[in-house]
Every structure is written in C-alpha cells, then in structure tokens.
C-alpha cells in the first residue's frame, strides 16, 4: 500500500448495536482526506447486516463521487463468498470493479440474503418502500397490520432523507428478515447535513445545543425543520411502534447516537457520522400496529 494511502478495514460483524464501531472503522474514508489512494479492506467482514450495507454504500458512493478512488486504490473483497457477493451487489460497487482484488474475485457462492437500494427521488423511494416491504413479507412472518406498519415506517423515513438531508446523493436503504426468531431489521443512511443542522433551520429549534439534544428533540411528535411542509411524524411514529414492540430504534448523527425502544440510552460516538443513520429491529411475533400508535398519539394530543 502506498505510504500516503488512506486505509479503512472492516472485520467481523457490525450489528445494529455496533454501528458506531462501523463508523469508527470507516472514519478514514469519512474524513474526506484528499488522497486518491484508498484501500478498503473488507476481507475479514463476516456478516453484512443492513446497517453495514447502507453505511458502507453511502461512504463508498461519497468517495466515488468525489473522485477519491485513483489508479492505486484497492478494494479487497470479503473472503466469505456470500458476503463477497452481497458486497459486490451494493449500490455503486459495480463502478469499483477496476479496484477489486483479494479473495474470490468474480462470482462464486450464493448471493446475500437482502438487497440494498439507493434513492434520490420520491418516485424511487415509493418503489423501494414497496419492494422492501414485500421482501420482508416473504422472508419472515409478517401479518397485515405489521406489513402496513413496515411500509409506513419505510415511506416516512425514506422521505425524511429527501426532505431533510439536503444532499443530491440521496440515501441508501436495506431491510432483512429472519424466521427464527421471527424478526426484521431496516436501515437507512445518508451523508447529508445531519439532524442538528437540519433541525436548526427551524427558528424554533435554532438554539439546540448539540447533536444529542437535536436527536432527542427530533424523535418528538411534531418536531420538524420544515413545519409548513412536514409534521414531524416519521421518527415519532417509528419510535411508538418500537416502544410497543419492545424492539430497538437506533438514530445516529454527528457525535450522538440515541437508542429507543426496549433499550433507551443516549450514547456518545467515538467518531462522528456526517449524515444521519436510522436503524430499527422488531420482532414479528409481537405487536407492530401503526393504527395503535396513531390512537395513542391522538389520545395524548386531545
């Protein structure tokens, strides 16, 4: 590797609770140091969680758009065939083919168990919301109320990226379901302006002190940077769903990370995430009913 290269190395697995470790390991790329000699070492990546997929895809897209992959750049693909193929299918990774090296190369092994999507428009967001919901219906036991709630969450959270991230790059979304135990994860990431910078556009929240205060405010019903257009539903409704499900909602932006649902904790970050990450995990054998959330929130309002 050249002496002035920027190296990022991922290893093992980064489940939803470990998204901060993922950001730490990708920090050399997020720092946007002006070096064309990127080495991205994914050889020891053993599992591609939805959270890993969306953050990795967002970071790589940003680097590629900035022309940071140069002649001496290298992407070392995962050794495990299933992970390697899933990584190769991430949005934007087809453009990195000239830099691929390491174990496996082309083809071989099964595809990963889920898809990661890139979106920059409402039309694309609607298609992705529909496709990810259908994929979860097929991969884990989802009843009709849960299917409706998943679609609602997805569409609202995808629209949050388009309405608030303020980036032409748009966002990345992935979802994966499991049958035993019956559960699913959804992850959405962008490298836009982040929650605090978005929220402080609204004069009512201009004095929000830091990233953690911004996250705590952003999950409240009715809090939005654009009150004339939006109403602050997405995160508040998602939080209500995860509270009732005893699931987990992780929101990460800047130097802050907030866990809601079964575990409620405000945690700092070891490395800043320049945009916004939202990830959730829910059990499908527990209530996941958005109408119940509306009823509850309506009761609080009246």
């Amino acid at each position, binding site marked *: 590797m050249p002496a002035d290269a920027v190296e990022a190395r991922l290893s093992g697995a980064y489940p939803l609770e470990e998204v901060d470790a993922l950001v730490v390991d990708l920090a050399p790329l997020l720092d946007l140091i002006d070096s064309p000699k990127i080495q991205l070492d994914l050889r020891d990546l053993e599992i591609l969680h939805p959270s890993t997929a969306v953050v990795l895809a967002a970071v790589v897209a940003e680097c590629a758009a900035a022309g940071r992959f140069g002649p001496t750049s290298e992407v070392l693909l995962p050794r495990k065939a299933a992970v390697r193929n899933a990584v190769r299918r991430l949005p934007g990774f087809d453009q990195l083919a000239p830099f691929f090296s390491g174990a496996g190369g082309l083809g071989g092994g099964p595809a990963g168990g889920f898809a990661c999507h890139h979106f920059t428009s*409402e039309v694309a*967001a*609607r298609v992705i*919301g*529909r496709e990810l919901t259908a994929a979860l219906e097929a991969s884990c036991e989802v009843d009709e109320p849960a299917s*409706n709630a998943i*679609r*609602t969450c997805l*569409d*609202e959270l995808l*629209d949050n990226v388009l*309405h608030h991230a303020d980036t032409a790059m748009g966002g990345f979304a992935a979802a994966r379901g499991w049958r035993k135990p019956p559960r699913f994860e959804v992850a959405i990431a962008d490298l836009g302006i982040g929650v605090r910078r978005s929220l402080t556009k609204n004069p009512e929240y201009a004095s929000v002190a830091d990233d953690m205060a911004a996250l705590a405010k952003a999950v409240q*019903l*009715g809090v939005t940077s654009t*009150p004339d*257009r*939006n*109403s602050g*539903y*997405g995160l508040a*409704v998602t939080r209500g769903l995860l509270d009732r499900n005893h699931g987990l909602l992780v929101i990460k932006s800047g130097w802050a990370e907030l866990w809601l649902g079964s575990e409620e904790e405000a945690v700092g970050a070891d490395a800043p995430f320049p945009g916004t990450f939202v990830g959730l995990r829910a059990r499908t054998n527990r209530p996941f009913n958005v*109408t119940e959330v*509306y*009823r509850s*929130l*309506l009761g609080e*309002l*009246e």
Partner: protein
Amino acid sequence: MTRRACARVIAVADQLGPILSGRSAGALLREQIEELARQQVEVVVDFSGVELATPGFADELFAKIDSSLVDTGQVQFTHLDAELSVLRDFVVVQRTRA
C-alpha cells in the same frame, strides 16, 4: 346563493392504487379537489379499496385542505375504514395544534 354543480366522485384507489403514500401524491390530490371546489363542484372522495395511507399523504390531504370545504359538505370523504379514520383524526388534530 351559489348553486353547486353536480357531485364529482373521485375514486382514490382507482386513481392512485390501494397504497396512498408520499406528500407529493397527497398534495396533488388535494389540489385536484380544491380546483373542483373552486368551480362550485361538490366533490365526493371515495376511499373504497384503499388499504393504507401514510401520515405524510394524510397530512397533505386531510389536514391541509381548506377545512371550510369539509365543514360545509362541499367536499366529502367517504368509505374511510377505521384505520383511515383514526389517521385522519390524528393528522388533523396534530396540525391544528402545531
């Protein structure tokens, strides 16, 4: 006294499908309804066949529409199931209090 033209029925599911999602779609439907109302047309918005609406869509349609059109009966929302009715009440109350 203003005389209203015959009622115009908008079958939402036929026009937009069973899933109503996205602020843009909700805003376009609201603008269509308000344009008809400006022409003194009575508008019946029929939700038969609608399976789901998202809060953003519902906010654009139910909460941002000129409430006098609904109060006077010039615009009527029909065949809202229990889920849609709760969502409508939620977004209207939320925007009223905002």
